[in-house]
């Protein structure tokens, strides 16, 4: 069992017509065999959190090892396995499914006013494929781990004696899980929107998930064929990536990054979607420049297919090819900048609640700005030659993936937690942990920018002494991060057993997800929602002096507009 029914009192309130999705059935099989998008989302949530904890512990081991220049904990070979597993856990098991498959699964149909995703059985299949992929990953650890780095560059990945084969299979299976989720969401967005909900009445989270899903469907198959060919290299030396047999190892990099660069946006686009929602609700204000943000999601998705070569500036591509990739890389930065400005403009002049989700969202904006700006350094050709494969790159992508995507994931968890479980966590502790994480992140990664600029290459089990001070500060930062996350895990779990009952509309949101009962029914809504009003129209709400938010027109039925 990957999850359990939380012990929450969800006694029917005055307005509750049906039992919540948590109470409607009980027992192991009611979860393991469920087709309900919300329960599948919760199972994913438990799964990806477990993967995050494993990956996080490995990260702490890496940081501890690097306390001294000779390396404190491991033989070099074991260190290589530890950082490879950290990457595989975090990228394939955590970040890629994190927001779409857990929060997206739970929230997307609610925002569209739908009773479920379009293809519920495929949704469950996607979860079980994720589980099989995770088990295969663990299996490959038991049978000798993998020491190639998460990028699996050939020919090293062909020569190594470690379990590349089972890890490749794991990634192939995880790829299908990701494709199924994306495919399902595209169909859901096209076919399941509520009556009255045109494309531009969709919340921005839906736009972000839509752009993400397109990338998942179109890019992941290329990863599939890449790991398949890598597996053939292992089974019978097929030679396509192996120079000893006439193959070209650079072709592997092209294939890999054709997937993995869009994958970067598979990771960050849903995060941007979450932040758009959180910023709007907690500022009680419509998103500034809604259409521009929606279009920027789509344009990021399109351009992201054309920039993979910027991972390979030092591999000896022709100057013309590098010029094109560098130019397109600069282009992709523009919609990204627009989003940051729009979030800040949304907060400006709002009624800004400095709640826990909002603190996570503000931390996201700060760190994402660092990640975005340092990305420009790496897009510039001559500067990237110096910075490529150094700790500058490590710090940059951790700012984007960990500091941004993971923080947005946690912002989303804190934002929808009352909707998911009907309980509230201790917000005071949540704010402390948000601040700890913001401080911990910067203490960990700012020294890494510095040592990367000074020339510290990545994936080094040992290093020259001049970098020791930066490594030590970074390790201290990682410990602060560890404390922040441990605290978060503690108060979230505690809220499930002893948290106060959440209000019907805890933060005063107005998108359709906040029109469901808390927690939602099995099929989400009491009555079929019809979207008559505007999107993000906060004037629909009556706010009592104690902060209780109710919808003006339909205080008791949780329906938008009228049932025609």
């Amino acid at each position, binding site marked *: 069992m990957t999850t359990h029914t939380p012990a929450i009192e969800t006694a029917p309130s005055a307005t509750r017509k*049906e039992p919540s999705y948590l109470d409607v059935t009980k027992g192991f099989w009611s979860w393991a065999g469920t087709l309900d998008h919300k329960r599948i989302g919760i199972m994913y949530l438990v799964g990806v959190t477990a993967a995050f904890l494993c990956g996080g512990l490995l990260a702490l081991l890496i940081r501890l090892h690097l306390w001294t220049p000779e390396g404190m904990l491991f033989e070099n070979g074991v260190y290589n396995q530890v950082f490879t597993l950290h990457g595989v856990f975090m990228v394939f098991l955590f970040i890629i499914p994190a927001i779409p498959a857990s929060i997206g699964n739970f929230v997307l149909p609610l925002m569209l006013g*739908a*009773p*479920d995703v*379009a*293809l*519920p059985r*495929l949704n469950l299949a996607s979860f079980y494929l994720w589980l099989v992929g995770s088990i295969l990953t663990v299996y490959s650890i038991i049978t000798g781990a993998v020491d190639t780095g998460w990028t699996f560059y050939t020919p090293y990945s062909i020569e190594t004696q470690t379990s590349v084969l089972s890890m490749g299979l794991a990634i192939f299976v995880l790829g299908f899980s990701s*494709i199924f989720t994306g*495919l*399902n969401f*595209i*169909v859901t967005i*096209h*076919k*399941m929107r509520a009556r009255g909900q045109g494309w531009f009445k969709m919340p921005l989270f839906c736009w972000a998930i839509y752009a993400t899903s397109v990338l998942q*469907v*179109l*890019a*992941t*198959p*290329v990863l*599939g*064929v*890449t790991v*398949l*060919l890598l597996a*053939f*290299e292992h*089974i*019978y*030396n*097929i*030679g*396509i990536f192996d120079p000893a*047999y*006439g*193959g*070209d190892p650079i*072709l592997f990099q092209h*294939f890999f990054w*054709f997937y993995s660069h869009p994958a970067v946006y598979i990771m960050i686009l849903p995060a941007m979607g979450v932040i758009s929602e959180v910023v709007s609700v907690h500022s009680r204000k419509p998103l500034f420049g809604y259409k521009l943000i929606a279009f920027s999601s789509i344009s990021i998705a399109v351009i992201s297919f054309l920039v993979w070569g910027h991972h390979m500036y030092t591999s000896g591509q022709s100057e013309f090819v590098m010029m094109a990739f560098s130019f397109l890389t600069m282009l992709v930065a523009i919609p990204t900048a627009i989003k940051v400005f729009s979030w800040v403009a949304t907060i400006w002049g709002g009624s800004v609640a400095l709640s826990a989700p909002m603190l996570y969202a503000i931390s996201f904006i700060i760190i994402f700005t660092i990640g975005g700006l340092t990305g420009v350094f790496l897009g510039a050709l001559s500067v990237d030659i110096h910075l490529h494969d150094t700790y500058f790159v490590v710090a940059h992508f951790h700012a984007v993936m960990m500091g941004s995507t993971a923080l947005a994931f946690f912002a989303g968890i804190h934002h929808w937690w009352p909707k998911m479980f009907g309980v509230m966590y201790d917000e005071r502790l949540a704010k402390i942990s948000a601040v700890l994480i913001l401080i911990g992140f910067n203490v960990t990664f700012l020294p890494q920018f510095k040592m990367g600029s000074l020339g510290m290459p990545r994936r080094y089990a040992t290093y020259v002494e001049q970098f020791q001070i930066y490594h030590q500060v970074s390790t201290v930062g990682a410990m602060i991060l560890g404390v922040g996350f441990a605290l978060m895990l503690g108060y979230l779990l505690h809220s499930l057993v002893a948290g106060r009952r959440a209000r019907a509309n805890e933060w005063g949101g107005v998108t359709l997800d906040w029109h469901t009962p808390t927690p939602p*029914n*099995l*099929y*989400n*809504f*009491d*009555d*079929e929602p019809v979207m008559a009003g505007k999107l993000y129209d906060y004037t629909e709400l009556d706010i009592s002096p104690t902060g209780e938010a109710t919808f003006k027109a339909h205080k008791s039925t949780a329906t938008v507009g009228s049932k025609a």
Partner: protein
Amino acid sequence: MSGHATIVTPTPEGFRPHAVAHHFKTAEQEFQAGKLGFWLFLATEIMLFGGLFAAYFLYHGVYAETFRVGGSTLNWHLGAFNTVLLLTSSWTMAMAVRASQLSNRKALIGFLSLTWLCAAGFMVVKYFEYTYKFSHGIGPGYFFAPEGHYAELFAGLPFPNLYFALYFTMTGIHGLHVLVGMGLIAWLIVRSSKGHFHSGFYTPVELVGLYWHVVDLIWIFLFPLLYLVP
């Protein structure tokens, strides 16, 4: 919302009625959702083969002469015969979809069976092509140790193994898709005989039909690239 009545599509006499899944408002919505989902799945198939085609074009550019000689060792008559088989099966598949829409159970089962037989014929031809190559030491990767006249033919050419690595990978993955298709068609035949498909519900026939056309389409590209290398 859980209380709404189950929608049943109109069902001709003698067929099994189809109940629309609970979360759809209309049968049309269910059909369209299934179809869009399947088109997206087919897009992933195109991307997967697209990767292999990219590898083919790269190495064809680098080792043009090797690829020409490699291609000349394949029997293009057999390839052409297989192309005709698959094209025929695409037509019978289209007719099967039509038959299901007209609730013509006999024609549906007949056309599906013909499609299945064409697919089986394709695989039989492929089997003979593969075993002939294997018996002369031509296999993928380290099974590549050409014997007899093949050894002479490839003498001095750079990396003939690469051509055959791609040949076996591409036709192998395509063949796997044909086998999966045969399984799906057999499943359709069983369900058709139980009267599951009719004018009110033929989604599975339509979707397998789409799949089969894509498998056919990929072969249309594979055949000239592998058998008729310029």
